């Protein structure tokens, strides 16, 4: 599609600004600091802008268009009422530096949300500041670091992560200064207690887990694991990516986790926005509360305030108070669902995953036996060996049928795999349709592997040359004459 730069025509405009009736002031800074050449921003009409972005939107797949079975991403329905409320000017137009007396509604919302999320996660305190899951992880790691240092325990340099973990886990631990120890999963896809024991020593600061894990399996030994970790003086960290599965059934806090991050853009229905903004609140048990980042929202005499005086806090992790408008959406969602609704969310998410797992198991191999939680991992390794058709090819062929591909090639411990998470907002009809199409593609792969290997055909663009794109990156528009 034509870029907006190519649509540009010198002198064309899409704006008109009201006159402020103020005289023109000459610039009083040094001439060499005065800009000489105009940035080459687009010069287009309002209709040009409307058409350009409307036509770009048409080239996107999205939850509102169809099924998005991305494992670990919890692509559930994003309710429109949440958007409407978050866009209300009493939320969107308030300034973070207005007197807090004039922002009591916002603070109260955050305070109440904090309490709700504590209840849902089973934690004692919570910060809403982190902007995303990974940002929450970093926050959590910094809290773990601060905790050990506060006790004069300076030798704890290591963070343990299972090999099935999200990449953000090791990356966040590393950013907090930890050395990352990766431990192998057991044959049942879960933490291998012996393996864990081997690595758990007095230098370990924290063990990062997600439960259910990225294979969609519940770590049955979690209580035992927590004991082992705590016995060694380390902390147990919960990656909230998969919280949807256990809503209404159990809570990270109840399983012995010390620190938890939640992904509001997964479990709590806020939209992914093509990558963000999300929000990654971090909850902690009481003994870690003092390390939470600033500001903290407190309630005194029915007034809500921001507290920056936390001497042992890890400090600022970003500007202001977090992604407030994402918090508004979450607050709306929790109020909408209520306790009954949230419980049903967990149940139907697990039901959908197990149902689809059963249907898919008739087409491709499931990586691990037994029931799953909210997602499952399947592999087409056999097909690949027989036909040369890879998981990637099947993924691309799904696009031709109007369905988004599942997460591929993750977790890294399974080969040629799909990680499939249907979420509770999809109907049985949709799951049946997915299984039907998947079966059809497997048939195609067996009959005519080239057909699948060259997919997709019907998408706005076909398979792209990613290798060259990264070898010789072109990351901005090449204006004529450059």
């Amino acid at each position: 599609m034509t870029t907006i730069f190519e649509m540009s025509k010198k002198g064309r405009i899409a704006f008109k600004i009201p006159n402020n009736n103020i005289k023109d002031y000459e610039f009083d800074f040094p001439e060499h600091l005065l800009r000489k050449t105009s940035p080459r921003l687009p010069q287009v009409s309002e209709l040009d802008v409307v058409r350009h972005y409307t036509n770009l939107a048409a080239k996107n797949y999205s939850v509102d268009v169809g099924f998005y079975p991305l494992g670990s991403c919890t692509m559930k329905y994003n309710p429109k009422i949440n958007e409407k409320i978050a866009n209300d000017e009493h939320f969107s137009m308030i300034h973070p530096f207005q007197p807090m007396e004039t922002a009591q509604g916002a603070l109260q919302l955050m305070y109440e949300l904090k309490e709700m999320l504590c209840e849902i996660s089973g934690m004692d305190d919570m910060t809403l500041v982190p902007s995303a899951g990974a940002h929450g992880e970093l926050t959590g790691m910094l809290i773990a670091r601060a905790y050990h240092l506060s006790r004069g325990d300076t030798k704890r340099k290591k963070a343990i992560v299972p090999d099935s973990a999200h990449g953000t886990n090791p990356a966040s631990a590393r950013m907090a200064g930890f050395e990352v120890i990766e431990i192998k999963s057991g044959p049942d896809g879960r933490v291998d207690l012996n393996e864990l024991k081997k690595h758990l020593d007095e230098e370990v600061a924290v063990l990062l887990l997600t439960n259910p894990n990225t294979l969609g399996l519940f770590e049955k030994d979690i209580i035992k694991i927590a004991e082992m970790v705590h016995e060694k003086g380390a902390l147990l960290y919960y990656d909230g990516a998969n919280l949807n599965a256990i809503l209404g059934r159990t809570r990270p806090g109840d399983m012995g986790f010390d620190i938890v991050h939640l992904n509001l853009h997964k479990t709590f229905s806020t939209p992914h926005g093509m990558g963000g903004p999300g929000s990654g609140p971090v909850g902690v048990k009481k003994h870690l509360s003092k390390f939470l980042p600033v500001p903290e929202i407190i309630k005194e005499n029915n007034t809500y305030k921001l507290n920056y005086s936390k001497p042992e806090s890890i400090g600022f992790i970003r500007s202001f108070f977090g992604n407030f408008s994402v918090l508004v959406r979450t607050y709306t969602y929790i109020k909408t669902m209520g306790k009954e609704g949230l419980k049903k969310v967990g149940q139907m998410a697990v039901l959908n995953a197990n149902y689809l797992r059963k249907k898919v198991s008739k087409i491709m191999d499931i990586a691990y036996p037994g029931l799953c939680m909210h997602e499952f991992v399947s592999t087409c390794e056999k097909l690949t060996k027989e036909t040369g058709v890879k998981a990637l090819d099947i993924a691309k062929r799904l696009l031709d049928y109007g369905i988004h591909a599942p997460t591929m090639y993750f977790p890294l411990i399974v080969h040629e795999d799909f990680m499939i998470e249907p979420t509770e907002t999809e109907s049985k009809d949709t799951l049946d349709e997915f299984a039907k199409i998947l079966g059809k593609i497997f048939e195609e792969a067996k009959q005519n592997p080239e057909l699948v290997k060259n997919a997709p055909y019907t998408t706005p663009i076909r398979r792209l040359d990613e290798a060259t794109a990264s070898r010789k990156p072109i990351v901005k528009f090449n204006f004529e004459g450059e």
Partner: protein
Amino acid sequence: MHRYIPHTDEEIKEMLNEIGVKSIEDLYIDVPKTVDDYNLESEKDEFTVKSEILSLAKKNKVFKIENIFAGAGIYAHYIPTVVEHLANDQRFVTAYTPYQAEVSQGTLQALFEYQTMMCELTGMQVANSSMYDGATALAEAMLMAVRVSRKNKILAASSINPEYLQTSKTYCTPQNIEIEEVKWNDNGTLDIEDLKSKISDETSAVVVGYPNFFGIIEDLKLIKESIPEKTLLIVVSEPVSLTILESPGKLGADIVVGEGQSLGVTPNFGGPGIGFFTTLEKYVRKMPGRIIGQTKDVDGKTGYVMVLQTREQHIRREKATSNICSNHALIALINAIYLSTMGPEGLRKVAKMSYNAAHYFAEKLKEKGYSLIFNGPFFNEFAFDAGENYYEKWKKLAEEGFLGPLPLVKVLPNFKNCALACCTEVNTNESIDNLLKHF
């Protein structure tokens, strides 16, 4: 039955049957039951939810836009209706990260165009497709400078946004990166002597604001000339100002970061905004965050993909350039739509009107006997001595309908009675005169 959950009772039965279990309970065989009933309210219909939450919302005061005189990182600007309209298109809003490029060209092209626009504004060669905010963008810039230079010390002007500085310290400390501050002089600009005295072979980078937190326009040329060639120059900038100020790229910056909220994003009580991150081509493989690149499909058609993913956490894990995964792509889209709508002429007009309004306000304050804290040239913010008990006065102003200049004591405890005033194109002659009546 719930409107967000499509399962009928009959379907639930069919599904359990297919799975081969008797009840939902049976699916949780591995999971201890520790929750029976959350201590939460019951589910509600949307009309009740809306009325409850909007009555909470109304406890927040929305100031008339022309009466907002506080900035300090979040700015009130006119946002054209098309920006909000287009950015609310749910085909953008409800899309995931563009891993499947073939069905994500809308996202990818929009972000590619966004990167181009940010390069144009900053005068840099490459941009990523967003960070969380200005503060984390700066923190990541410092980490990157250390990766590039393999040196562990950063010199940062004390005059950069205090929250950005604090955030950077939070990020840098665990990695044993030391941030030393450099003073400002009476002009409010970087004290070059202090800079020179602190710079050493260990200095990875120098960080300055442009304009700085006090609105003062730093002389980037002079600073660039005052530091060794191999020391990186990191500039924290305000994008609207860059239609008037020479681009940091032209003046020798190595990394330019900042907060992009001023480009069409509502204040949102401080978030989400967006961190922009731009640098030089030679550093592209050291950059944090997602980058979109142009390529061709098998039919030779131009398209866009995420590039250099081997820098990122989902592939490189603990060796990634950053842990960032979710970014602020939707806000990058808003920036791009805003910049498309305003164009170079519109954005320059916004900048010039902001400049004029701030200078008019300063002039009038001076006529009334108030004095500015710094003598240096400023863009659209300036600090002045607002007199005894300004903090209380500021709260009174709010009752009168003004979001007055920020009492600096809120962020810099030493600045008692000082206020940081901000004007943009929304402040009119009349609104400034009205505010002045209270001074």
